[in-house]
């Protein structure tokens, strides 16, 4: 069974306010309620230190440290194994997509963010989150 959106903490990282707003609106229409935002990697790192997120939507290019670099750092840290990282980026070529997935992205969404595509990808991410939670539960049992 997929994870339940209202139970999940979500962080949306993008330097464009309008993209944060678009992603947030799409998430709310899918039932998510616990949504925080950040406009750069430093702000995102602060948020992630203060709170445990289940899904992080992250832009590739950010001012300062890139979203890609930030995601790689968290992926190398085993404490964040169960966090789903979703790249939401205007980098639409296959090379970037493969690079992101190899570096540990759970999913890859290209801008413009179109509601049906977004909903479909998030559905798969919810499955991923649920499976990770099951595994973690089995390990601790």
């Amino acid at each position, binding site marked *: 069974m997929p994870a339940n959106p209202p139970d999940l903490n979500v962080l949306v990282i993008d330097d464009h306010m*309008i993209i944060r707003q678009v992603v947030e*609106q799409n998430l709310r229409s899918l039932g998510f309620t616990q949504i925080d935002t950040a406009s750069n990697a430093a702000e995102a790192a602060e948020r992630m230190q203060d709170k445990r997120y289940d899904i992080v939507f992250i832009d590739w290019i950010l001012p300062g440290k890139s979203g890609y670099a930030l995601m790689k750092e968290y992926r190398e840290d085993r404490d964040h194994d169960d966090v789903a990282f979703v790249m939401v980026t205007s980098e639409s*070529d296959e090379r970037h997509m493969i690079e992101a997935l190899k570096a540990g992205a759970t999913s890859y969404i290209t*801008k413009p963010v179109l509601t049906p595509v977004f909903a479909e990808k998030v559905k798969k991410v919810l499955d991923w989150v649920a499976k990770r939670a099951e595994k973690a539960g089995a390990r601790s049992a």
Partner: protein
Amino acid sequence: MGDMKDDIAQVVETTVVETFSGMLGQTIVAAAGGESAAPTAKDFIYACLLLDQEQGASASFCFSFDDALLARTAAAFYPGPQGADKSVREDIACAVANIVGSKVKSCLNKYGNNYEMAVPFVGEPCCLPATRPDAIHLHFSCDAASAARGEDALVVDVALDAIPAGNC
């Protein structure tokens, strides 16, 4: 060169329409008669961006947005005073430029080019690459009727400094 310009025009048209209609909830249509350069009226907001390669070839873009289109978009996403803030409208302009520029970059790089894209910025009308004789001028209107009246909601000017390899 002609084919490449046609291909770039196609990518820009498709992406602009998809971004406004599919993501931002604003109807926009590609308009014919794209020979003239972008308007330089006070109520336009200009977003500029550059794609360049190590070899020095570059493509410069200027997006001229009718402020009314951006204001409608902003109001739809930010009800209340925030929607009236100019920085919100500029953010939307740069976000759209960023998406369109990235799509063109991907299209050009598929054929062995190595374009990188700089971060779009809000500029002045003087950033227009419109005076170049080989520039591409793409006009968009809010609907067919305003297109017929020649009312621009957005004009995208593109100037290529060299012929990129391949077709998109």
